[in-house]
């Protein structure tokens, strides 16, 4: 481990500890925003871990998230709360493997289409099952408060960052980098591309399910259309791409401004959130193909170039 590497780890740890202090100093509103930001940070960062290097755009976040929420909603009656997020994680990873087995051997378009409808598919099945039991939704009544959810999410974020850092240094991370640049080359140099993609796809699957499980107590009342809202998948994609997937901290740079923008728009123009999403997509493709991170890198490059010339 080099000195720069260990310095990054220390800096990240300090920042996370600072973030964890928010509930003691912030107002109720600040904590609520904090939970939202922490949630999107976890989702977008784990999304970028897979979709960044492989360029496979996953729209399955809502499906995994909903799976997690339902794990808590159903499991809370039988099991203590602390067992549920890990169970959700395992279920999310299993679902990711199933989806991956069907689609990851094929080109990226099939994967996008499949994940696009996955949340709707799971939602239809759950609604159908609920029609038998006659109940529309489920109540999650716990004594878990917003600060508890916030701390759990910050802890999960720490895990995701550490995991991402480990993957970046591992053989798997290196293999994925090659797959992203040229899958043909990767295959010829002996990388089992389908297995590498499958392994990594389990990460966002598990993390999104855990996040869903942790947030279920916040919603209190869970029903399919709330748990599997397809908008979530798109928001996560936009935040991650807006920030930039080239660096581990990239998605965070997208999450913070986007969350505030989204809050502002949905308060004053609640019907225009779809339009906002669309415009963001276009901005990303035409103006910020590498996100804010790419923009920063470019500015820094220009700056250093100017210094050399001067």
């Amino acid at each position, binding site marked *: 481990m080099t000195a720069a590497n260990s310095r990054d780890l220390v800096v990240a740890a300090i920042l996370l500890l600072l973030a964890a202090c928010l509930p003691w100093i912030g107002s109720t509103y600040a904590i609520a925003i904090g939970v939202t930001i922490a949630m999107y940070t976890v989702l977008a960062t784990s999304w970028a871990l897979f979709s960044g290097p492989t360029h496979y755009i996953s729209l399955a976040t809502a499906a995994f998230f909903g799976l997690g929420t339902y794990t808590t909603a159903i499991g809370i009656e039988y099991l203590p709360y602390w067992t549920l997020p890990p169970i959700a994680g395992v279920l999310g990873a299993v679902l990711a493997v199933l989806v991956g087995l069907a689609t990851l051997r094929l080109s990226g378009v099939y994967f996008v289409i499949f994940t696009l409808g996955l949340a709707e598919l799971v939602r239809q099945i759950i609604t159908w099952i609920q029609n038998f039991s006659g109940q529309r939704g489920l109540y999650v009544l716990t004594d878990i408060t917003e600060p508890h959810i916030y701390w759990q999410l910050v802890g999960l974020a720490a895990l995701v960052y550490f995991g991402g850092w480990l993957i970046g240094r591992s053989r798997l991370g290196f293999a994925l980098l090659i797959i992203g640049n040229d899958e043909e080359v990767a295959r010829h140099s002996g990388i089992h591309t389908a297995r590498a993609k499958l392994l990594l796809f389990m990460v966002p699957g598990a993390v999104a399910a855990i996040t869903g499980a942790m947030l279920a107590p916040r919603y209190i009342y869970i029903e399919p259309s709330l748990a599997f809202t397809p908008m979530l998948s798109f928001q996560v994609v936009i935040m991650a791409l807006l920030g930039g997937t080239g660096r581990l901290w990239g998605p965070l740079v997208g999450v913070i401004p986007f969350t505030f923008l989204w809050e502002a728009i949905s308060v004053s123009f609640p019907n225009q*959130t779809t339009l906002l999403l669309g415009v963001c997509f276009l901005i990303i*493709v035409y103006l910020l193909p590498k996100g804010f991170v790419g923009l920063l890198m470019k500015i820094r490059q220009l700056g250093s170039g100017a210094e050399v010339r001067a």
Partner: protein
Amino acid sequence: MDILITGLLLGGTYALIAMGLNLQYGMSRIMNLANGEMLVIGGFAAFWLWTSGLVSPFLTIFLVAPVAFVLNWLIYIVILRPLVRRARSRGQLEVDSILTTFGLSFVAVGIMIATFGGDYFSYSYLARPVVILGENYALNRLSAFIGAALIAGALYLWLNHSRPGLAIRAIAVSPDSSRLVGIDVPRLAAISFALGGAVTAVGGGLISMFLTLDASTGVLFTLKALIIVIMGGVGDIRGTIVAALLLGILETFVATVIDPGLTLAAAYLLFVSILLLRPQGLFGRSPS
């Protein structure tokens, strides 16, 4: 029997919509995820002209087609061509066009909600029963099917038996080699994208005769059209028609026998089995 005929009638309209998408994805290589919004726009035009001026949807589609053609042509030239130019590989173009057309789709939904509101719209046109083989069917479903079949048939003949049709099929197979035999690939790609949009919008006009639409249903139709196109084989019009009829029958079967809420789940099941068993499409040759 009842299920079979209703399914075929639904599948016929699906076939037209999926042909539109196939022209865009198979021929001009743009995965257009805003395809469903074009359908909703076509449906909305039919709704609006019928409720305000009692213009028959069959007349409206002659207005919708050229308008949608020009609109899609502009979208291709202004928005998508720069992406085609800057793309270094087919993979990058795919990622870029997916993100862009998602953007366009959301913008279209946003504009439609802002101008017309998010309400469902439906109208009653030819809502009379008609008897086929001793069973009752709605006349609007039957006439929409006949309209779709006529247009799809004309398109099929045009693609298979005319020079421009041949050229369009050539760029579907290999854009690089088409250039060598003197085909103007950029121009034809724009035309087939525009044509695809027009066909989908017409399909929307027809489907609005018997289905209820709203500003945000577009994505559901995009999904179905995508499933059909992949099932039938990308760039393969004959496969698209067969796959669309299959999907129509399957959906009707699931909706009548099991639960109407499970139609998409059924379509997905079909999609997965195709992906696992025949990823090259029903009639596609194996890539090896």
